């Protein structure tokens, strides 16, 4: 083959290939409106959904930080509402940098499965999206506050969820895990929790806060866990990597333990229609604060062991209370007990699963907690010197 013929053939190949693949996908970044977050409310004017987009306006120039701008649209499906925005802005909305989706209570109570589909099916939104439930009357209100940092509210919320490892209060379940939990709920009846979000008004400024776990029965919201139970919920779900336990002698609250590591194992025991969950929790902690007049606990001190015991008792009590409350109030298996039975002994689960709704509230719980104090962050003189 002559060299020029080879070149012509190569050029033709590239030309044909370029028509087949990806070429349509060339788009300039500045032709997109970047969405930081999205709020879903019940629709107005006969539409099913009312969407509030928190977008980032980048027209401010180099020196001003990106300003959040709100765009609202109604639609019968999520995508319908998304496309509806083009009549209001000249640019297409871009979902890849969307971090959070806020749901109104009403939407959450009606079931969230239908609206998850768009986010999973479409190629732009990430599967690491976080869903939250608004404490405010509407979900859109969450985006209204002007934050002191001038940051988009959505990014602030995303940042707070990421820093949960130091607080251990709410459990952020990203979209792909939500899909897993809801997707397999027919087999193991696991229930979902999502973090809540509310606007906090202090003197002169507004902030957003996420502090509670919202309980779903399957995909419908049924209630909220108390704020102080959050850490024990995370502990049970084995998702805790930080946080504080406040304990003290005789139910007092003057000693603070900082959790360094926590692991929980749940061992189900099934006999007939009764199930018992043996929960073993092991916590490594540090003595972080003694809010008392006299410092009495140190590593060389035998009283130190007492602190470990106190901590373990506090954990046991609270975990028991958390499970009991959930069984009584919501009957939602947010701890994945069903899944544990399913994993542990499939024949047991097969027998239990048709009645799991009724069995779960009666599941017995045996909690054994162990706290190990690793340090006290202080050097003490030896006893008696």
């Amino acid at each position, binding site marked *: 083959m002559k*060299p020029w013929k080879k070149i012509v053939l190569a050029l033709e190949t*590239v030309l044909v*290939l*370029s028509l087949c*693949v*990806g*070429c349509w*996908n*060339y*788009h*300039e*970044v*500045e032709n*997109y409106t*970047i969405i930081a977050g999205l709020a879903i409310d019940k629709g107005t004017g006969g539409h099913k959904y009312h969407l509030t987009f928190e977008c*980032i306006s*980048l*027209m401010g*120039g*180099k020196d001003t930080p*990106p300003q959040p701008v709100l765009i609202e649209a109604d639609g019968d499906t999520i995508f319908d509402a998304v496309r509806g925005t083009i009549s209001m802005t000249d640019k297409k909305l*871009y979902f*890849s*940098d969307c*971090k959070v989706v806020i749901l109104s209570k009403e939407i959450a109570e009606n079931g969230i499965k239908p609206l998850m589909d768009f986010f999973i099916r479409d190629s*732009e939104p*990430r599967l690491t999206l976080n869903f939250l439930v608004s404490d405010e009357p509407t979900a859109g209100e969450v985006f209204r506050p002007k934050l002191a940092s001038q940051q988009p509210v959505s*990014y602030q919320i995303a940042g707070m969820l990421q820093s949960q490892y130091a607080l251990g209060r709410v459990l952020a379940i990203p979209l792909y895990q939500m899909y897993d939990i809801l997707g397999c709920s027919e087999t193991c009846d696991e229930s979902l929790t999502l973090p809540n979000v509310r606007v906090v008004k202090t003197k002169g400024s507004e902030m957003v806060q996420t502090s509670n776990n919202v309980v779903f029965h399957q995909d419908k919201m049924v209630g909220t866990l108390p704020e102080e139970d959050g850490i024990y919920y995370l502990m049970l779900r084995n998702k805790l990597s930080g946080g504080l336990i406040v304990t003290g002698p005789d139910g007092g609250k003057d000693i603070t333990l900082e959790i360094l590591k926590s692991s929980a194992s749940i061992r189900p025991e099934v006999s007939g229609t009764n199930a018992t969950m043996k929960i073993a929790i092991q916590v490594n902690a540090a003595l972080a604060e003694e809010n008392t007049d006299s410092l009495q606990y140190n590593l060389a001190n035998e009283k130190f062991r007492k602190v470990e015991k106190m901590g373990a008792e506090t954990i046991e009590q609270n975990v028991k209370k958390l499970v009991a409350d959930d069984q009584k109030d919501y009957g939602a298996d947010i701890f994945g007990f069903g899944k544990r039975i399913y994993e542990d002994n499939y024949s047991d689960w097969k027998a239990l699963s048709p009645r799991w709704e009724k069995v779960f509230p009666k599941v017995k719980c045996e909690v054994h907690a162990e706290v190990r104090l690793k340090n006290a962050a202080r050097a003490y003189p030896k006893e008696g010197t």
Partner: protein
Amino acid sequence: MENRGGFGSAKLPSDELKTNLEYIRNLFTGDETIQFRHLTSPYQTDWRFCLVYADGMVNNRIVNADVIRPLLEYRFPERPGDPAEFISQHVMFSDGSEKTAEVEKIVQGLVYGDSVLLIDGCAEALVLNTKGWAMRSIEEPESERSLRGPREGFNESILTNLSMLRRKLRTPDLKFHYRTFGRRSRTKICVCYLDSLINHDVLTELEKRLDDIDIDATLDSNYITEIIRDKTYSPVKTIGSTERPDVVASKLLEGRIALFVDGSPTVLTMPHLFIEHFQADEDYYINYVFASIGRMLRILSFFVSISMPAIYVALVTFHQEMLPTPSLLSIITARQGVPFPTALETLFMIIVFEMLRESGARMPGLMGQALSTVGALVIGQAAVDAKIVSAPIIIIVAFTGIAGLMVPKIKGFVIMMRFLLLGFSCVLGIYGYLLGVIAMLTALFGTSSFGVPIMPDVYADDAQDYKDIYWRTSWKKMLRRPKLLSWNHNRQATKGKAK
């Protein structure tokens, strides 16, 4: 007379000085640098000579002291049977003296700085070595500087260059073979190798290719390179070039063959592996750890230099989701108000950078400063402020450029690949980029230099084969020569096991 560079076996026409002189004069009609010096011995006036030489090509001192002086001072006897032989043996002080009647030899000698002594009554002439023309002194080559190691570099004289090599490898194993190329330039070249080390297949192949050369002139070694290279249209270098004697010596020691071309300070070495682009001579003169770091950086910057603009365009125009949110935001902010699409903008800035580089390369020193001011200020600052290009592009292009300067030996290939990959990724995004890289690697792995694959990974099968590729191992551990380059693999005879 059309002289196409050959007189065949023509001989001097007669034994009369006058006729022979006339003949030579005719050959060089219109060449006024040819000087004719008539001489007659004061003691025997029937000894008449004419010395012919090219002005400027000879060393006048040698001509005066070693040729003219003995001729005039020698007390000639009665004429012997062979006067040319007699003079060559008894009179001349010159070190080289060849008796010949062949016009070809006489003419070649004349134009190459030899003096030709015509003797009355003799049909043969003496070609005397009186070469001596002005020559550049031995300097450190501009393009291959190093902090440590020898500082000498080749100059334009083939004899000087060969002597520099000879001084490094003092063994009779070192062979030199002369050839002459160029119908008009009659350029001397020398094939040079260590006989016991080379792969003789490579030598045979080289000689076959050299035999096929039919060219007017070879003004630089690149004339030869382009004719004897493996693939005429391939952008990959398959013949190495260097101006440093130490580099040539080390390549010969690995079993390569060197080709010296008279008039060119650049010596060719072959076969040439792709990794040689990233090996610097200094790698072998400094601690091997630092040398290896430097070499890996060079390989990395090769990839950075060919990929950076392509990946940027692919990320910004196809795969925005791969950018972290803050950098996406800042790129969007920077792109506000820029009229051109990212692809065009990148292409434009790369071309501007290449222009700056190319103009800088051949710029007289004094103008260089103005150039860098214009380059830095106008392109860097003003273009961004005027919203003609966006700021990230400047960073990308600067990065690309710096990385490219780290591997000067492969400059042309880098520039070509940069544009090619950019083109691919403008059309197909990251798929296009990968397609381009795959095509590049396929081509590289399929290329060979004189029968030796240029990517050593093709045949490397144990650690010894990698000891001078991506990193340089300590000399203590480099037991073997590169495979395929040499038929004699043991570098350290007492330790290495032949394989």
